């Protein structure tokens, strides 16, 4: 009897965790997507085309996800991120290969998206974590798009 109860509890917690993570990750997909396609972009006659990949990590309070990225020269990129219904849950920092800090959205109120004009091709690392003053754990989604003029 005890064994059944323990098994049921373990199954429940495991399933709940899985379902909850799934729901959280799915629910922020459209929000992250919306940061790649803003009204302001239409007004400026441009769009950001996704690189066709979805980057995500389930982060706890002491965890950081690391993204290795190559940005091509003569391009403008947008990095968009989300971890829930508020747009300032995520802190991300962009470093060059020598660990020089190129950008931190923390200095800009945890802005959920930011554009990067890249003059020359550069290899970067993006480090992503949750702002622990706002969220302790959860799924973080990140998307990268490159700019293209609207026809």
């Amino acid at each position, binding site marked *: *009897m005890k064994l*059944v*109860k323990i098994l*049921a509890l373990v*199954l*429940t917690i495991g*399933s*709940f965790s*899985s*379902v*909850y993570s*799934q729901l959280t*990750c*799915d*629910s922020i*997909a*459209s929000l992250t997507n919306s940061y790649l396609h803003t009204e302001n972009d239409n007004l400026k006659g441009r769009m950001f*085309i*996704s*690189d*066709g*990949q*979805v*980057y*995500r*990590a*389930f982060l706890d309070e002491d965890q950081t996800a*690391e*993204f*290795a*990225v*190559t*940005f*091509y*020269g*003569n391009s403008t990129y947008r990095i968009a991120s989300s971890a*829930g*219904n508020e747009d300032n849950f995520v802190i991300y920092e962009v470093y*060059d290969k*020598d660990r020089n800090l*190129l*950008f931190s959205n923390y200095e*800009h109120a945890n802005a959920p*998206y*930011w*554009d*990067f*004009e890249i*003059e*020359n*091709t550069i*290899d970067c690392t*993006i480090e992503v974590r949750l702002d622990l003053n706002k969220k302790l754990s959860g*799924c973080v989604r990140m*998307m*990268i798009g*490159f700019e*293209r003029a*609207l*026809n």
Partner: protein
Amino acid sequence: MKRNFRNLRTLSIVLGGLAIVSCGDAKTDEAVVGTDKPLIAQVDSNQTVGIVSIGGQVFVIPSPIQTADLISKSNAPFNTDLLNPTDNSVNYTNNFRKALNMGIYGADLGYLAVYNATDKTTSYLKAVRGLANDIGLGTAFNDELANKISESLGDESKMLSLVSEAYKTADDYLKENKKDDVASLVIVGGWIESFHFACAAAVATGNSELIERVADQKSVLKTILAMLKQYRDNEEYDDLAIELEDLNTLFNDITYTYEFVDPVTNESEKVTKISCKHNVSITEAQVKEISEMVKSIRNEIIG
């Protein structure tokens, strides 16, 4: 008998509770973020979510469409011989080759779009949809997408956006279902095809930006190899990685220099300009050598 019933009751209560909690959360999340309908099929909630492992890296591979875009802007002529003929699509019998070639056809779709070669788009979309269906990604490349692409023929940006969105949906679906290995093949296929385009265009035109783009693939290749490393227990993945490692050696004699320059941020425009200096010294012979090997690897994949 009584004890069994009690056990059953305990399980029912626990599972019932789970169902209620799960449904409640789903509703809350939907209310918060809007009601966009996902293109993908319902994910089996019994599976563990495909979340990246912390402590490891997430591998970001540049879009093949972006390279196709650069090629068209360099005035390199449209070359239909660079594409994987759609007739080949029926020859791919295992999921390994199907996934790789789904990536290849995706890059081909991008190439067709940037050159506005609308007469071929439908057949390439059909090839992609066939492979996508075979590997369980039919929902990402559904009738709705086909109709939208048909309606946007001639509108390059919209076409590119639709193709990218479809591949993103497929990537998301694969990762959600813990099929990161398959997702990586689609990505590698797209990358090798766009690399093939870039090499051919660089050799044909001598355009310096294209030549630099070829040299820049050293970093991307390093990321690709790191991504494939975790799947090398599988012989097919290992064979592919070995070929890519051979390709990697050709970059050893190319000289790269890098100098950090302070970035400049425009707060109101939400943009940061990164002007770090990056110089590449690559010879014509090196470009040709890389081009030949890329072509060989790619031709082996398309069969």
